[in-house]
């Protein structure tokens, strides 16, 4: 048996790190139920008895009880718009980058072609350079391109090309492709080629082989690549920050903008909703994975 297994030192360090990881999350959740509008008052009234709310020193009833800030949040159209944008960007860019990335993984792992090394190296670049460098590059590209096109075609008003959901989606696809490709490639690497060879020997062409043999076998890799891409997209701040425009604000951008101006318990309510969704998703993924094994 490993001699370190029950070392109290390791257990203490683990407990400390877990406390460090969770204290902020617990703070976020607790204060989303806080009765005070100026949320940081730890000694202030926390809705212990439900439907009370402290406004200007008066105790008033809230129709939503302890979920007051969640109700306020659900009426906040800016948040709802940002949430909708986030989901649109994440779904579109996940689908496209998963298809493109899986194709690239197949090409790199199963075929030989002239630009192979170049392609593989270019896929590592987004991982080894800071995200802001890529964000700035795309910002410079689009702003120069848009100025050029708008000027040369004499576009004015609404017909002008500007930053918006389109630029955000394009930017997201380009930083997600490398991650999807690497995940699917790792899966392909571990696969026995003889299944595919057997299918070909039995007369299946490349497409049928892919459909019936390769794809079902790499499907778990494709799914985890897609999941990674989706979470990267939903969470992304830096690249979105430099590529979004009016009307294409995503949740992280909205929260950041809000935080620079004001702090409201609505943000805690939003955080709590977010954390609960993450809890459910992570739980479901783990269940799925353990069933697979």
């Amino acid at each position, binding site marked *: 048996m490993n001699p370190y297994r029950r070392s109290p030192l390791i257990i203490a360090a683990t407990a400390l790190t877990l406390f460090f*990881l969770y204290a902020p999350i617990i703070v976020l959740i607790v204060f989303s139920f806080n009765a005070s509008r100026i949320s940081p008052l730890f000694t202030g009234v926390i809705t212990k008895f439900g439907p009370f709310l402290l406004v200007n020193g008066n105790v008033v009833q809230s129709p939503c009880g302890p979920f007051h800030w969640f109700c306020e949040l659900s009426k906040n159209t800016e948040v709802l718009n940002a949430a909708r944008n986030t989901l649109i960007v994440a779904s579109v860019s996940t689908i496209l980058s998963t298809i493109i990335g899986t194709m690239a993984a197949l*090409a790199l792992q199963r*075929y030989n072609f002239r630009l192979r090394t170049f392609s593989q190296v270019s896929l590592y670049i987004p991982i080894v350079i*800071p995200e802001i460098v890529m964000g*700035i*590059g795309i910002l410079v590209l689009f702003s120069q391109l848009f100025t050029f096109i708008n000027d040369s075609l004499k576009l004015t008003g609404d017909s002008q090309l500007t930053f918006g959901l389109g630029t955000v989606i394009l930017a997201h696809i*380009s930083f997600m492709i490398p991650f999807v490709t690497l995940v699917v490639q790792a899966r392909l690497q571990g696969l026995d080629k003889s299944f595919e060879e057997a299918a070909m020997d039995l007369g299946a062409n490349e497409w049928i082989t892919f459909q019936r043999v390769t794809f079902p076998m790499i499907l778990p890799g494709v799914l985890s690549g897609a999941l990674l891409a989706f979470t990267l997209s939903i*969470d992304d*701040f830096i690249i979105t920050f430099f590529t979004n425009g009016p009307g294409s604000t995503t949740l992280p951008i909205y929260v950041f903008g809000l935080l*620079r101006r004001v702090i409201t318990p609505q943000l805690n309510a939003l955080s709590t909703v977010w954390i609960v969704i993450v809890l459910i998703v992570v739980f479901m993924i783990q269940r799925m994975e353990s069933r697979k094994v």
Partner: protein
Amino acid sequence: MLKRLRESKSAQGTLLIIPTLIFMVGMLIIPLLLTTVVSFGHPNSNGGVNYAFSLDNYIRLFGYSTDCPNGQSACFNSLYAEILWRSLLLGLYTTVLDILLAYPLAYFIARVHSKWRNTFLFLVLVPMWTNFVIRVYAWMMILRQQGVINSLLGWFASLVHVPFSPLGMLYTSGAVLVGMVYEFLPFMILPIYTSLEKIDNPLYEAAADLGASPFRTFLRVTLPLSMPGVVAGTILVFIPVMGTFIVSDLLGGAQVILVGNLIQRQFLDARDPTFGSAASLVLMVLTLIVTYFYTRKFGFSEEIIAV
């Protein structure tokens, strides 16, 4: 044509890679080249670029200044060099602290009974998947003047009848360091865990049977075998810390300016995309140099996709 495609493996491979190449060239390589071109230019009055070939932006970044206190025409201004140095140090401190915090936890998860392993991994994944900006907000709530720590300390002080004035913790470099360490900790835990989990139990038993003390076993067996994870975690932590500006913006205020803030301000407030581009390229070269020497010394491995 179709027949040729069916027979040529090389043509099929090319066809499969084309969309990726379009994105990688169009959205990564061309933008980087364009950034380089812009960095050699001058800004014009409406925030655009006058293309030229001058090294002015780089010279300015490394300390040349024409805005001097005692009437000189040129002098050394260390402002930008200090920002670069501060970012580099912060990247270094954050990485080291994250290794120290992550290692015991990763070790614990890798050695815990397999029945409990998923539960602990779950505990690591939840903070990681909770939005980055929201987690910075949590630290604002904890650290500010009437924040959680000050409220707790105040409450405690009132219990023991000691006068208490709130500590100014937010908007300090310490706050930025704590925020960075917190944000990137899961990215260190997972790769280290992945490499520790691969070590077979018999290896520990063999070391113990041959008379190695637990400490010696750790030093000679565990640590070397987990190095790929530590290296991957370092890359996953160091590179993003160097380019992040939200943490320093929200937790450091105007006190702690990093390269990321400098670049962002050039594009959004100062309206000088040429200087911002130069700073962005210098940041890229700086991280590439550090990563290159680091991975050349310790190797580069697949643990990088453990996350």
